[in-house]
């Protein structure tokens, strides 16, 4: 079959057709390659901006903090106040705190939080900002007093334990408890302090600028892919406007607490328009789901840092990297053999969404196996509903049964789909639960790269193979979604950089510089544009067809139940029976 160019027609179709022989021209005519070129272009810009500009005194602060923590760890059986202060000092050194990074954030940032007046998402006057600040100051002052009192109690308890040379177990336990309370109070103070940093803003100009930048950015590829750049440029602002509206609703305080994010709102807005007044033909030129998703996924690759999987040692690897693939494969097989779900792509997308980390895993897996837009929509919708339930039920259940917070944290981190919901559920329990839950979820997030790669290979070698035909290496290459190569390459390059500069500098320059200060903004905007496009190209009636017999729901519920049981069992075995020494240190 002749090579197919991306046209207006197939842009609106179910999946991107990527068939035929590979040729050199693919390098500049296929969106998979454009996703790589554009993604890497942004990555290079980010590296050039941040790496030459480390914060002043970065290495000195890190060295001093590490020396204090080492000294404290040698003398005390628990983390002392000085240990925590040193850790905090190190965490405060971030590249994205620099003035230039704040300017970038201002131009790339999302709408602000609001409660009842949606205009506050974009505009806030000086008077209103002052009023908000004054209100926040009251809470901050109260939180500061609490912290001071908790610190005094913690210091006394620690001094008592130190006076006995940390040989008195009950005094040590008392000191640990008081230090834990002080940490809780300090976190509350820090959150209250952030709210006092409110100032007047007007984001209309920055959104206009960003819209122009993104439109021109994507137009580069559009020209070579055979689409009309003028049509794309005239349609793009509408898709971008819907993306802004999706972010605006994500920032509404009640929606944020329920964990209903931009992905859901973008799909909902798109769906409403396409299924009521319809999407005009001229607009479809900017409805480029695959183009946006793939470019976003290449950027996501930079955020997948393999060195971090060792963060919590062997127990973390077992909970996140052994249980997760087992659950994924078992759920997929259950869907195929027992439920007999007709669509394999729907089956694997729901399985990955449920077992790995919700929406981000669903996007990567769906793109790797070329799932249909409706299938991704269904997976995202189910994940959203179950996450909203699980993030409230699980921490309350853990509290009710008195489960240890390290075990509870590992359980929640391994099972609650959405990453943000894990942080909310963990923080609801305690700092310990939050640290374990977040670390397990982070290790699971990193697995997306491997999952996407394996799914892409499996689909090329097995699922899309003609029955009875052997698949040659060239055939696999022709079928392989090439953007996955960009995704994996970005991950490998950033993992190597991160390892070579060390975790401490990596935290400052990569985590809180290149990624959080630049790439993340673009990646989130690209995903949001993709979800708007999904909604605009999806038909309600077709969506209903995928849900026939409730099989996706049964798959999700059965898979999640298995996930809950296996994660709890493995977390218990790893953290309490095999590696209790690691648990004791947390």
């Amino acid at each position, binding site marked *: 079959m002749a090579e197919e160019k991306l046209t207006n027609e197939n842009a609106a179709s179910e999946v991107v057709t990527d068939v035929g022989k590979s040729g050199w021209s693919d390098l500049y005519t296929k969106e998979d390659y454009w996703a790589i070129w554009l993604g890497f272009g942004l990555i290079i810009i980010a590296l050039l901006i941040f790496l030459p500009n480390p914060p002043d005194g970065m290495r000195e602060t890190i060295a001093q903090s590490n020396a204090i*923590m080492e000294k404290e*760890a040698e003398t005390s059986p628990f983390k002392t106040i000085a*240990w925590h202060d040193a*850790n905090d000092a190190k*965490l405060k050194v971030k590249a994205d705190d620099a003035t230039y990074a704040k300017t970038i954030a201002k131009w790339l940032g999302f709408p602000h939080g609001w409660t009842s007046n949606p205009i506050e998402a974009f505009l806030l006057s000086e008077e209103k900002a002052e009023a908000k600040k004054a209100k926040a100051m009251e809470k901050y002052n109260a939180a500061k007093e609490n912290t001071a009192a908790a610190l005094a109690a913690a210091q006394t308890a620690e001094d008592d334990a130190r006076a006995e040379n940390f040989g008195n177990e009950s005094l040590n336990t008392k000191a640990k408890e008081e230090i834990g309370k002080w940490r809780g109070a300090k*976190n*509350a103070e820090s*959150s*209250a302090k952030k709210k006092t940093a409110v100032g007047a803003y007007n984001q209309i100009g920055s959104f206009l600028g960003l819209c122009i930048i993104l439109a021109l950015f994507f137009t580069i590829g559009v020209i070579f892919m055979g689409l009309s750049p003028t049509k794309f440029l005239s349609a793009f602002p509408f898709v971008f406007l819907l993306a802004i509206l999706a972010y605006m*609703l994500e920032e*509404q*305080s*009640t*929606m*944020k*607490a*329920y*964990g209903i*994010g*931009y992905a859901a709102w973008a799909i*909902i807005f798109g769906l*409403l*328009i396409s299924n*009521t*007044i319809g999407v005009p033909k001229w607009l479809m030129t900017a409805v480029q789901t695959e183009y946006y998703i793939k470019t976003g996924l290449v950027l996501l690759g930079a*955020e997948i840092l393999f060195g971090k999987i060792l*963060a*919590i*040692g062997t127990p973390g690897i077992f909970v996140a990297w052994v249980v997760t693939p087992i659950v994924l494969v078992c759920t997929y097989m259950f869907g195929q053999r027992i439920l007999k779900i007709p669509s394999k792509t729907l089956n694997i997308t729901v399985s990955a969404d449920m077992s790995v*980390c*919700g929406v*981000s895993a669903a996007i990567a897996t769906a793109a790797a196996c070329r799932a249909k837009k409706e299938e991704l929509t269904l997976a995202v919708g189910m994940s959203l509903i179950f996450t909203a339930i699980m*993030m*409230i039920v699980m921490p*309350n259940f853990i509290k009710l049964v008195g489960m240890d917070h390290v075990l509870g944290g590992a359980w929640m981190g391994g099972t609650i789909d*959405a*990453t*943000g*919901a894990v*942080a*909310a559920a963990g*923080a*609801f329990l305690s700092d310990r639960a*939050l*640290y*374990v839950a*977040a*670390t397990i*979820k*982070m290790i699971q997030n990193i697995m997306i790269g491997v999952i996407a790669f394996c799914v892409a290979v499996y689909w090329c070698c097995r699922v899309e193979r003609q029955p009875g035909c052997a698949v040659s290496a060239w055939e696999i290459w022709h079928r392989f979604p090439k953007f996955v190569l960009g995704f994996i390459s970005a991950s490998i390059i950033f993992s190597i950089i991160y390892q070579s500069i060390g975790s*401490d500098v990596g*935290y400052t320059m990569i*985590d*809180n510089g290149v990624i*959080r200060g630049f790439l*993340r903004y673009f990646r*989130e905007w690209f995903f949001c544009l993709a979800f708007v496009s999904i909604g605009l190209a999806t038909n309600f009636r077709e969506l209903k067809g995928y849900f026939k017999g409730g099989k996706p729901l049964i798959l999700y519920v059965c898979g999640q139940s298995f996930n809950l049981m296996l994660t709890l069992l493995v977390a218990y075995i790893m953290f309490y029976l095999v590696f209790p020494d*690691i648990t004791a*240190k*947390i």
Partner: protein
Amino acid sequence: MKTTLRNWCKLFLSLFLIWIFIFVIAPLGERVGVVGTFHRHVHENNIDASALFYDEVAEFSHAYMNIRDSIKY
């Protein structure tokens, strides 16, 4: 013309239902004990419960560094 008008009505009705969900139904859910307590905690601590990936939430990098240092030191 009639169909067009009906379609626009459908769109506005759907948007109105979204408004009802955000400002009436969802806040009602917060009146349920555990939901309300949980949401208050999320608001007070400014946690982004809707984040898709770990590096969108500051707590994740803090957790990573704290756990790493706890095991190392």
